[in-house]
């Protein structure tokens, strides 16, 4: 993995000539977690798609830059709410899919190591339909790690999980993505309060930076500071709407 850059997104997004949102500005610090919090439909996912080099259906007027000046898309990996696990491939087949799609030789030894890190050591040959939602999301995390990109964009990857699985998945993801530049889109105030080195609140009115708790993430779910930030975030979210 190359050295993770900071990234900056700023601009206006239109679709079919109609104004969608913006101007907005998002800055993610190098090697840290930036949480982009906001209600559904405000354009958070669109920002991620544009950073990843997707979203050809949007007209984007602005710039997306990395602090080192190199192009971003080849250094970005995405993980979404839908685990996007291919039902016809077993776990290791899914984790090594990227290599096969690029015509490279899949590195099975590394894939096994990555699976061990996400706690799926003995699941290599399992079919996706035999896995729980949380396990499938860990397959997606392993696939993301396998790509070994310095920038990781997370689009509500935990929102379909039950509360306990979600909290564990947050800890595990935070741990394995250590040192990468992470931009997490979420509509869950608790998630933002737990995980963000930096928290950005995006509403129709625009972008506001909210100061996170002082402790380093991942913060305990029940720490008073985490809870009060959660409350403050929710209040701002309500007031903006």
């Amino acid at each position, binding site marked *: 993995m190359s050295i993770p850059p900071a990234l900056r997104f700023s601009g206006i997004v239109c679709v079919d000539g109609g104004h969608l949102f913006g101007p907005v500005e998002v800055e993610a610090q190098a090697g840290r977690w930036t949480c982009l919090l906001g209600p559904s439909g405000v354009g958070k996912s669109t920002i991620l798609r544009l950073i*990843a*080099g*997707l979203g050809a259906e949007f007209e984007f007027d602005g710039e997306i830059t990395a602090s080192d000046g190199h192009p971003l*898309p080849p250094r970005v990996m*995405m993980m979404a709410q839908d685990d*996007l696990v291919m039902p*016809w491939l077993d776990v290791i087949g899914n984790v090594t899919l990227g290599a096969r*799609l690029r*015509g490279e030789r899949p590195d099975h030894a590394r894939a096994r190591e990555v699976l061990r890190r996400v706690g799926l050591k003995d699941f290599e040959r399992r079919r996706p339909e035999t896995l729980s939602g949380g396990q499938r999301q860990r397959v997606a995390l392993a696939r993301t790690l396998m*790509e070994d990109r310095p920038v990781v964009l997370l689009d509500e990857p935990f929102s379909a999980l039950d509360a306990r699985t979600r909290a564990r998945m947050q800890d595990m993801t935070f741990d394995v993505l250590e040192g990468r530049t992470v931009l997490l889109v979420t509509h869950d105030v608790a998630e933002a309060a737990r995980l963000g080195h930096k928290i950005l609140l995006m509403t129709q009115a625009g972008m506001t930076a909210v100061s996170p708790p002082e402790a380093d993430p991942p913060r305990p779910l029940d720490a008073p500071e985490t809870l009060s930030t959660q409350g403050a975030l929710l209040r701002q979210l309500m007031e903006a709407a």
Partner: protein
Amino acid sequence: MRRIVRIAAVTLLAVGLWQLLVTATGLPKFILPGPMLVARTLWESRAVLAEHTIVTAAEVLIGLGLGAVLGGVSAVGLAASPVARALVRPMLVFSQAIPVFALAPVLTLWLGYGLWSKIAMALLIIYFPVTSAFFDALMRTPQAWLDMAQVMRARPARVMWHIRIPAALPGFASGLRLAAVYAPIGAIIGEWVGASRGLGYLMLLANGRAKIDLMFAALIVLAVFTLALHAAVDRGCRTALDRYGAPRAPA
């Protein structure tokens, strides 16, 4: 078990209605033979029927195999290349405006009276359903999968092979199920136009000689064969898709 009972009940009802029609109208047996007479003919002419069934079955199976391969390759080609789509697709649709029946005499002229003109008919009749069912499925790959592939810097040919084709296999299977029903129609039309063997030929021959009972017997054999073929293809597709782990419903 319940299924067998249901099939038996439906068959019994159909045969009963048939007999009722014969009794009520009093039509002579060279116009409408009763089920008993047809059953007897079915048994007594079993050797002749078997001989002709083998010929028709061979035409249908070869046609089906070739149609599946050709349809599969065409669908992938069309899905992979926008140029092919722009050029070939209108031609394909236009070709559907020509009734395949009308082509039968020409095919017989070109390919002779043997197996190949019938195989060609079967192939022509199933080519479009197979191609279009598979093609449609190939064009409906979930966008999120394609996006992920793009983020992974995938090569288009590999996306086709590793994502689009596997995801579209249920569509291909629906095409094959349709083809299993259509292919016998193609072979029979081919045999009507010119043949010296096959169930279609036997039907024409029996009809011409007022052996309507034999005509009906051949028709029943054909129907049973078609149903069996459809059931076999359906089960084969299901088993293959399950083992492969393809998405259940057409994507």
